[in-house]
């Protein structure tokens, strides 16, 4: 009886192992025949190629492993920016689609239908080359607020030059810990005495006052470095100083967030519509204000519907960011599975590392979102 139950699973396992064994054996034989060696030793070799945009210090004298980190961080950067903006746009558009105002509702609907029905790669090309054509050359750029310069060579923004940055960071961490305690205290107070505390105001206050104290007493100070125009040749200019966001990053983040936001908008709309009308009416009838109805009754229930499909969208966005290679944004695929693969010729090693990395990224997002989903799920008492 027991054996019968296990047998099909055992057979499947054997077949899977055989198939994998066959392919890896084949690969081994083929590689041996062609004199290709296998190994990850190349990761510590000098990479000898440069990357245009990096979050950590990097140039060609560093190792291939560091090049991998550069690509990975760039992928994470564009994914995080994309997820944040896609969520903001998605929530706004999703709620706009529920508006009773005809114009707002139609505009949101047209946006959703338009952007989700055009292939993403085309949109990336569109935003990149449209941006390149539309943006001014560095010398013709009008400063925004006097210090920001949006040009074809990138978005140049002022940079902070810090003294005693660590003390400032400690003060922010202290503020966050204090806020957590205030919230816990406020919750207890409400449960025991029924008195509400203005948590939001106190939190904002803490977040300002502690870092401010670090400036006044902790010896922290920051000066601002404003980008200055610099001439490269008779006709070409660039900006020096400050921070530079390459146009590739901007257009990729823009394309990813506008595309993914359409799906998130639909998730939000589905979620809010999924809460029955009776809930709202019941909440209103016990005297909650419209804000409280939304915050305490509708949203907690809507979120339960919104979160799981939105998780999928976050995963899609992260994986879609690999289209970056088409427009020269140095993400993991371009730097590691592109240049590094070409320079070393280690296709199997590099592709396997890249796949594992995306898998890890996706699983991390999944775990976090599942944890959040569990947290907001109905807790039956």
């Amino acid at each position, binding site marked *: 009886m027991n054996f019968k139950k296990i047998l099909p699973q055992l057979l499947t396992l054997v077949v899977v192992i055989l198939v994998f064994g066959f392919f890896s054996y084949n690969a081994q034989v083929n590689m041996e025949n062609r004199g290709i060696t296998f190994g990850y030793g190349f990761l510590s070799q000098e990479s000898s190629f440069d990357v245009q945009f990096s979050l950590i210090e990097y140039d060609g004298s560093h190792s291939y492993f560091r090049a991998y980190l550069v690509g990975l961080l760039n992928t994470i950067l564009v994914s995080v920016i994309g997820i944040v903006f896609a969520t903001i746009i998605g929530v706004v558009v999703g709620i706009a689609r529920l508006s009773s105002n005809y114009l707002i509702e139609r505009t949101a609907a047209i946006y959703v239908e338009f952007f989700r029905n055009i292939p993403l790669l085309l949109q990336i090309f569109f935003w990149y080359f449209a941006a*390149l054509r539309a943006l001014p050359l560095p010398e013709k750029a009008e400063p925004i607020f006097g210090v920001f310069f949006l040009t074809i060579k990138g978005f140049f923004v002022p940079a902070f030059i810090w003294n005693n940055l660590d003390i400032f960071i400690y003060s922010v961490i202290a503020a966050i810990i204090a806020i957590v305690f205030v919230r816990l205290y406020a919750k207890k107070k409400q449960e025991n005495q029924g008195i509400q505390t203005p948590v939001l105001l106190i939190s904002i206050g803490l977040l300002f006052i502690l870092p401010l104290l670090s400036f006044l007493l902790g010896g922290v100070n920051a000066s601002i470095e404003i980008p200055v125009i610099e001439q490269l040749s008779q006709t*070409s200019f660039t900006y020096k100083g400050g921070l530079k966001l390459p146009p590739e990053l901007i257009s990729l983040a823009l394309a990813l967030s506008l595309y993914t936001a359409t799906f998130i908008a639909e998730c939000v709309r589905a979620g809010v519509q999924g809460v029955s009308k009776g809930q709202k009416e019941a909440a209103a009838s016990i005297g909650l204000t419209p804000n409280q109805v939304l915050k305490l009754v509708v949203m907690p229930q809507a979120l339960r519907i919104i979160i799981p499909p939105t998780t999928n969208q976050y995963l899609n966005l992260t994986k879609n960011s690999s289209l970056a290679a088409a427009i020269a944004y140095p993400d993991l695929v371009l730097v590691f599975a592109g240049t590094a693969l070409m320079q070393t010729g280690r296709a199997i090693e590099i592709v396997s590392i890249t796949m594992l990395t995306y898998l890890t990224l996706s699983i991390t997002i999944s775990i976090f979102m599942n944890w959040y989903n569990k947290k907001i799920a109905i807790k039956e008492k």
Partner: protein
Amino acid sequence: MFKLVKRLTSVVAMFAVLFTFTTETMAAKKSKTLKNTQKKGFVRCGVSQGLPGFSNADAAGNWTGVDVDVCRAVAAAVLGDASKVKFTPLSAKERFTALTSNEIDILSRNTTWTLSRDADIGLTFVGVNFYDGQGFMVRKNSGISSVNDFKAGVSACTNLGTTTELNMRDFFNSKGIKYEPVTFEKADEVVAAYDAGRCDTYTTDKSGLAAQRIKLSNPDDHMVLPETISKEPLGPVVRQGDSVWEDIVRWSLNTMIEAEEYGVTSANADMMKTSDNPAVKRLVGAEGELGAALGLDNEWSLRIIKQVGNYGESYKRNIADTGILPDRGPNELWTKGGILYVPPAR
């Protein structure tokens, strides 16, 4: 009686074993790639995704270029018909994997011959069909007239996964200039980005610059700087481990170059059979048994010259007459001041 039968069978078996041995040693001359190619009826050739003069498809899907002609020459030699080639356009990133994983049998895609590529990743370079070097293209009105005019902060557009990326770093590092490399997967995007003004300079092999310049919106506003910062010998590549196939591709290319040296062209090849010069007669298969040495018939080289032409004809047709690089520079025969010099076919 039984003994006799037993003996007879053992003798037959012995002959059978001997026979298979001899046929096997004879078949060893034939390579696996050659056998497969003859069975399929076409040569599988990896080319670029569109580089005028080297490998470029017209609207009807006909491929032309000096890289394309190498594959056509092999098809003429092996299959008797230069048109029996299946072209696979490949990006710089895909090309070596396509070759080592058996998708194609010849990679003829303006590929630089380097030690690590030749020795480390299962490839064999068979020769050079174009001597090139890396250069820079800039806007004429930029006032940059030499690579020494570049300043820190310069942004350079180029292709991903090429020796260009490495040379560029070596070059700017030696000058102590901080630069911004902008690398695209496909050449068309590099051209578009440079054209839009994203980059101050576009760097790749000089032949590539000359070819891509035509695609810019105003080709006359741009120029290629005179300096060459690297050696880029471009040539066809085959998989490691099939030396017969390697020889066939190598000598197909050499035949084209030697034909030019001896003045044999597609027009006069047939008449050269009665030439007084034994070297010329060998080249057109009227003397010697050179084809057999490669496992081919003796007309193989004649077909190459008749159907594809010699190297000079191919260069003129694809690169000079199209206005890409009218001056042959180093790609002239050694007898005329260039460095094209191939071992003799004998």
